[in-house]
């Protein structure tokens, strides 16, 4: 995630995430009624995305697997609480995944009082096989990230992919708390408009 790439032409507007989201919402309704086959289908559709974001933030493969498992189990347990009126099904799952991941980060940080030293960046490693369908999403994210100011993009990335709180982001970037608050919000609003998310 390092800025825009002008040579790529991603498809804006409704892509497969929305289409998949529709289907996923139907599957979640069946999961809510205890349908194990539907849950297998949900797993196959989103486990890669869940594991991907957990791993991106946590880095450690063993911990990531543990948290991703917890997230998938929570999706099984809480499927009845997914409300299609409040947003897409994939977004609901990603929200749980990211929240649980930062919960883990904060718990660890609090326990050890140690600040993670690595700067956030793409996960690299030979055991990480990127999913094919990820490419389109990644292109779109990258293109829209390019519409942000450098500071906005940096703040959003540190918070989301780095799992930092905004005061930590402020410290890392050496800017005032109030500034980072507004940069994150403005940046995300710009991302929202660029990605065509209905608000």
């Amino acid at each position, binding site marked *: 995630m390092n800025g825009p790439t002008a040579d790529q032409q991603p498809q804006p507007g409704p892509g497969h995430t929305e289409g998949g989201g529709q289907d996923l919402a139907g599957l979640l309704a069946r999961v*809510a009624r205890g349908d194990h086959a539907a849950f297998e289908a949900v797993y196959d559709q989103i486990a890669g995305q869940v594991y991907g974001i957990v791993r991106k933030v946590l880095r450690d493969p063993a911990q990531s697997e543990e948290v991703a*498992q917890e997230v998938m189990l929570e999706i099984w347990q809480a499927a009845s609480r997914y409300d299609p009126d409040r947003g897409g099904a994939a977004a609901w799952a*990603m929200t749980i995944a990211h929240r649980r991941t930062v919960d883990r980060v904060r718990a660890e940080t609090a326990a050890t009082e140690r600040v993670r030293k690595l700067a956030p960046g793409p996960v690299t490693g030979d055991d990480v096989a990127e999913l094919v369908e990820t490419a389109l*999403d990644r292109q779109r994210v990258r293109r829209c990230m390019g519409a942000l100011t450098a500071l906005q993009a940096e703040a959003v990335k540190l918070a989301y992919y780095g799992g930092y709180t905004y005061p930590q982001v402020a410290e890392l970037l050496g800017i005032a708390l109030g500034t980072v608050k507004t940069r994150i919000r403005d940046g*995300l*609003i710009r991302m929202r408009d660029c990605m065509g998310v*209905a608000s």
Partner: protein
Amino acid sequence: MTNRDHDLHLLTGAYALDALDGDERALFERHLARCASCQEEVRGLCETAARLAMGTAIQPPPAMRQRVLAAAARTRQLPPEGRVLPLLNANQTVWRRLTRPLTMAAVTAVAAVIVVLLVFQVSTWNQLRATQARGQAVAAVLSAPDARIQAGRTSVGGTVTAVVSASRHEAVVTTAGLPALSGNRVYQLWVITQAGARSAGLLPGAPTSVLADGVSSAAKLGITVEPAGGTARPTTTPIIVLPAQA
């Protein structure tokens, strides 16, 4: 909009990125519960944040699939709840932290016990006790030295119980047995003062609760049936009005 509210509103982005720590998250969620424009913005920004995750998908370890499916097979699901309060997330976080060192089997057992407790909760007091874990804000009201219980039946059936702390100007409101509404109607909670009625948020189905603030000792708590999403002012006759102080 006060300065404090304005400051809180600026946190929509950080909230959507999970960049608030526990205390500030709880504070923001209380603000969110009664700020319709924030809810709107948060929804869009959370959806946007989720898109940031979608570009990161990678192949999970193959063995994970079987482990997850096996765990699901022996894990009881949560009952539907209508609408999940933001506060509930804080609860789940605390719960997860508490149970993290336990084995999956123990977690399953704890989940089963919680479900049994939920099903067999017999007294309103137990319900209110259960809400304590939902966040420090709720716990602070329930454990306030001056907490008083107000309860009554609504005109449409079911009961409403409020634990009011005069010193904190806050109330935790729980409902039980309210008739289910059709999809386009909701129950909305109001804090009624001489200045008028101010929304304290929508009431999801039992056994969840809503935290209302700005509850002076002269205030009343009222519940009305409103169109989905709630309204800025009550548009129907309250089904119940409870005084903050007897």
